[in-house]
């Protein structure tokens, strides 16, 4: 699971639209579309290249009635999934790739 100090950003070909409590994510390079529930939509909204995962979780802990360790676990799992799906990218990894 991704470290809480990592910073993520949405990839350039990602478009997302909030629909009520949910959201859809469009990966334009692959013409793939996903529907997200309210928690997933909120995570994606907060991931904006200047917050660590810990900060994202801290923001959400004031919004959802769930134990902090449970929320952290859920968010980390979700971010790992959308990272593997090519929706978000670890900013520090991107920087080190550019340096190489």
């Amino acid at each position, binding site marked *: 699971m991704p470290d809480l100090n990592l910073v993520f950003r949405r990839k350039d070909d990602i478009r997302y*639209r909030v629909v009520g409590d949910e959201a859809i994510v469009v990966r*334009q390079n692959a013409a793939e*579309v996903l*529907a*997200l529930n309210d928690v997933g939509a909120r995570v994606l909204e907060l991931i904006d290249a200047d917050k660590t995962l810990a900060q994202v979780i801290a923001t959400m802990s004031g919004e959802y009635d769930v134990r902090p360790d449970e929320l952290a676990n859920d968010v980390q799992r979700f971010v790992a999934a959308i990272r593997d799906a090519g929706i978000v990218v670890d900013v520090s990894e991107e920087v080190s790739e550019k340096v190489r």
Partner: protein
Amino acid sequence: MSTESLGARYLAHPDRFPEWGEGAPFGPRETSMTICGTRVRISGLSHEQDRAIHALWPDFVGEDVAEPAALSVFRTPESTFKKLDRWVYELDFDYQPGSLRLAGLDLMARVDMSSPLRAALWIATESPDTFHGAFENFLRVVVAYAAMHRGGALVHSAAVVDGDDAWLFVGHSGAGKSTVSQLGLDSGRRVLSDDLNPILPREDNGIDVVGSPFLGDLGTRSPARHRLSAIYRLEQGTEDSLRPMGAAETLACLMACAPYINRDRHRADTLCSNLLEMAQQVPAKVLTFRRDGTFWPLLERTALA
């Protein structure tokens, strides 16, 4: 798709993509058509190409109209295109803020997003098969954007007419659009297309599905309009059942099935807004269905309810 690589698999010299107005017309013929509520005037046609359009799409050819989308056809040397040994529908796009370029098998084109739309097609031959394939491939893109400009969308789907209304069946490739279309025909219903259907907002609320020239294996080339009564996402299974789809799931499903524009970073948001607006006006459900066609009563009961 980067600008540099646009059409590299189809064009011998992708760097020589024609500019607006470059090239000579095939001939002096002009034809007007109304497709999916969009009026288009096609110029630069030879007599043979004009005849081909009239023969292929007689119900869409009409009188000259004011302020149509302007499509111009130009001749380009045969050496422009690479020879491929198979038919390829897929197109390469270069999306720009006010326009786009595209390349595909035996075609290059530009579309200007002005209102009404302006587009140009470069092809090499008048041969009916090649002209039909290239022109229809081009026309699909034009109609997708024209529908978007009218608040609608072109959707990969099967449209089955039931009485005065129509049902739209969407799903990934292999989900069963052609199967459901054939079952619809077997049950005495009519199929508009089992491949691509434009949907447009009605003036009195609701959505119309509009007959188009774009058939897959089944359908009727007719400009008929029918009120859309429901959208079904297809899943094949061992029992027939329906479950409602939420707004996000419906939007995701439609967005995934709206070709060309769902990849267009300059206009995907407009498409998304159109689809969201339309999705709120008709019920949307997941239809799990058996391939023996026993599900129609389920849809009829839902329509009555």
